[in-house]
């Protein structure tokens, strides 16, 4: 693997402009101060963690996601380019979903193979021909991007269902501002704390036509045993809306109400953090006790907005991913501003042959997998693992894609041996309302804390960083 692009330091040792102030500060600050602040950050997080989110009910283990105190920095110009690409991609996702559940021009034109839709477990036939409010499906998208050089961002994955992590973006910033006020004085960092205001404006703009002038918005959570419960309560708190569970809602005459101490109150927009399968036992899984019986009929009657819409999963799995550049061209008549990672679709025989011949160089992923599980990282795998995947690939090629191992960019990170480069990715959040698209400058940077590791998932030892977008003065 070639040497990865470092976002702070060029190959010749010079410092990239966005990092100038940070680099000066890093070289002046005594290591014990850094260490002290790191422990302070951990203490604050633990407190917030205990306060909000105690994971693992059994003995209140606080499974905190490690936080790295060195920020990841993007120049304003870099961010603007990235943001345009994110907006373009999200627009295409919405047009694609509208098309898939109505006229299906994209299938007729042969841009996307039919079986990728019809045989996709996330495809919801119940949504065929259903009009959704404002024709929008993906209101809150998390688009994972990685960087390989100073010019190039790749989209790694689209998350169009219930992307999480935004609470870390907000809390990381909060902590950084508390711990390093002097750094914020030296850098003009674009704020992110207006995210929840933007989210509320987005959600309200999506209210169905039949709702009151001031629509009632709620956050729907599976409940306290869900691992992201903390984020759900955090968001409801910041949005100033009720955090409801399925049992707090009921449907009468195709209108959704919540049970309050003053009797039923109408609900217009549901920001649901519950998967399609569970939202309505009358339509989807009948054994779901987390959902609301009759919700789909209220939805189909146009009396409530679900964000994200039902059935968006058909647009974000890894097999569809490889068609995204064509999907963008098809709907928008534009060239994609953000690149896709080159992807071999194992469903195509010549691609499969290439993949089988190059297993030791490639990353092989399950089409529906997530969280960094069920994947093979060729260059790091031993013979047995490679042979295991060879067998899997031959047995069910449709279930896999393969990509080259990317030299993900690195950022300076505070680890045991001091400050060292570690690989990072970025999940910005794209909000699509009926009025406009909103993207706060930043996102969640995930960092692989182990030297050389490319796996940034928190379930596998990844950490997070505050992400700064600098405003040029």
């Amino acid at each position, binding site marked *: 693997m070639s040497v990865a692009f470092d976002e702070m330091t060029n190959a010749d040792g010079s410092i990239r402009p966005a990092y100038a102030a940070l680099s000066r500060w890093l070289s002046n600050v005594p290591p014990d101060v850094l260490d002290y602040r790191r422990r302070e950050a951990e203490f604050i997080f633990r407190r917030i963690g205990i306060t909000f989110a*105690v994971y693992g009910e059994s003995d209140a283990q606080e499974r905190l996601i490690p936080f790295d105190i060195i920020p990841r920095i993007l120049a304003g110009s870099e961010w603007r380019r990235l943001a345009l690409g994110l907006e373009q991609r999200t627009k295409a996702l919405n047009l694609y979903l509208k098309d898939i559940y109505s006229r299906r021009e994209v299938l007729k034109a042969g841009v996307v193979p039919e079986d990728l839709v019809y045989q996709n477990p996330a495809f919801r036939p119940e949504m065929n021909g259903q009009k959704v409010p404002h024709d929008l499906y993906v209101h809150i998208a998390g688009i994972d991007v990685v960087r390989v050089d100073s010019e190039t961002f790749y989209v790694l994955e689209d998350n169009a269902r219930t992307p999480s992590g935004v609470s870390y973006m907000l809390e990381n910033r909060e902590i950084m501002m508390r711990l390093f006020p002097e750094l914020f004085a030296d850098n003009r960092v674009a704020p992110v704390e207006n995210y929840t205001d933007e989210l509320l404006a987005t959600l309200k703009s999506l209210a169905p036509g039949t709702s009151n002038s001031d629509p009632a918005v709620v956050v729907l959570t599976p*409940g306290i045993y869900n691992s992201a419960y903390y984020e759900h309560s955090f968001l409801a708190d910041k949005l100033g809306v009720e955090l409801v569970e399925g049992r707090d809602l009921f449907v009468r005459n195709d209108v959704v109400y919540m049970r*309050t101490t003053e009797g039923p109150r109408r609900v217009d927009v549901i920001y649901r953090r519950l998967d399609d399968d569970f939202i309505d036992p009358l339509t989807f899984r009948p054994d779901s006790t987390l959902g609301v019986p009759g919700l789909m009929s209220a939805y189909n009657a146009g009396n409530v907005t679900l964000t994200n819409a039902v059935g968006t999963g058909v647009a974000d799995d890894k097999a569809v991913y490889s068609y995204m550049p064509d999907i963008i061209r098809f709907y928008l008549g534009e060239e994609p501003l953000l690149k896709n990672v080159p992807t071999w679709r194992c469903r195509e025989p010549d691609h499969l042959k290439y993949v089988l011949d190059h297993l030791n160089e490639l990353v092989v992923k399950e089409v529906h997998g997530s969280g960094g599980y069920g994947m093979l990282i060729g260059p790091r795998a031993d013979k047995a693992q490679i042979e295991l995947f060879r067998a899997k690939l031959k047995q069910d090629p449709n279930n896999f894609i393969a990509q080259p191992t990317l030299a993900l960019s690195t950022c300076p990170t505070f680890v045991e041996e001091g400050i060292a480069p570690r690989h990072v990715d970025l999940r910005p959040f794209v909000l699509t309302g009926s009025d406009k698209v909103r993207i706060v400058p930043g996102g969640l940077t995930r960092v692989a804390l182990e030297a050389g590791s490319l796996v940034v998932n928190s379930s596998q030892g990844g950490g997070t960083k505050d992400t700064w977008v600098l405003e040029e003065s």
Partner: protein
Amino acid sequence: MLSRTADNLYWLSRYMERADCLARILDVTQRLAQLPAAYGGSTNEWRSALLTAGCAEQFKLVYGDDISEQNVIAFLAFSPENPSSIRNCFEIARTNARSVRTALTMEMWETINSSWLELKRYSTKNMTHEELARFMAFVKETSLRFDGAAYRTMLRNDAFWFSRVGMYVERADNTARILDVKYHVLLPDSEHIGGPLDYFQWASILRSVSALTSFHWVYRESVKPWLVADLLILNAQMPRSLTSCYQNITRYLDDIANFYGRQGGSQRLARSTLTRLGNSRMEDIFQTGLHEYIDTFVTENNRLGSIVNEQYLL
């Protein structure tokens, strides 16, 4: 406000209060049981604790007739099989607190969460008397902190009022039950009413609700059964008395009704109970029987609980 949120706050406060009461019941029982055998050797104190806590039947399912000190303490304080054990109270309180995290203040949450964590440090088997005393103090302390945190930090809105209603309904129930301990603890035949053992039993009851000093301040007399009952039932100065609890319940239910612009069954029942307390005289209560009076009260108080539930929490 979501009915579930109100329900969670109401029960959260009830369970915190109940934990406190259980600790007090165990406290008073231990005092009674420590009486020298020469004083009569009555051995039914631990049975009385079960009756007072209202869980004699569940106990029988788990331990049969083996009503030993150790078993009763294990059952009332720690048993997962007892839905109202102190441990379960804290656990339910914490689960409720998590699901209404947004309706609690940081201080309330931290009290609940840290005490739940600390609870695990107490071993459940073979506690020495000293350990048990420390445990009791911890439980009472937690309840105090929670109450204080709620009082000092919550917004005065329906969230606060529902949690207060829950606390006072539970406290009224508990005061009545503690007072009833005396009914269940029999005086041995050799003892007579007003004798030293009788005196000691009444004093223990006062002590268990931290009211022995108050008693002397209010009555300036030696401890007498009808005065103890007066203090815990009728005396509005006494913050645990049934009258005081119902003054508070009435007030907070009225706050809720005014806020929502609608009165209902719970407001009417609370007012009528308060009026009845106001019209009671100790002579009459003892004439008809203290135990019977308390029994009727506990039933009415439970009925208020279910009306509050129907009116707001479903």
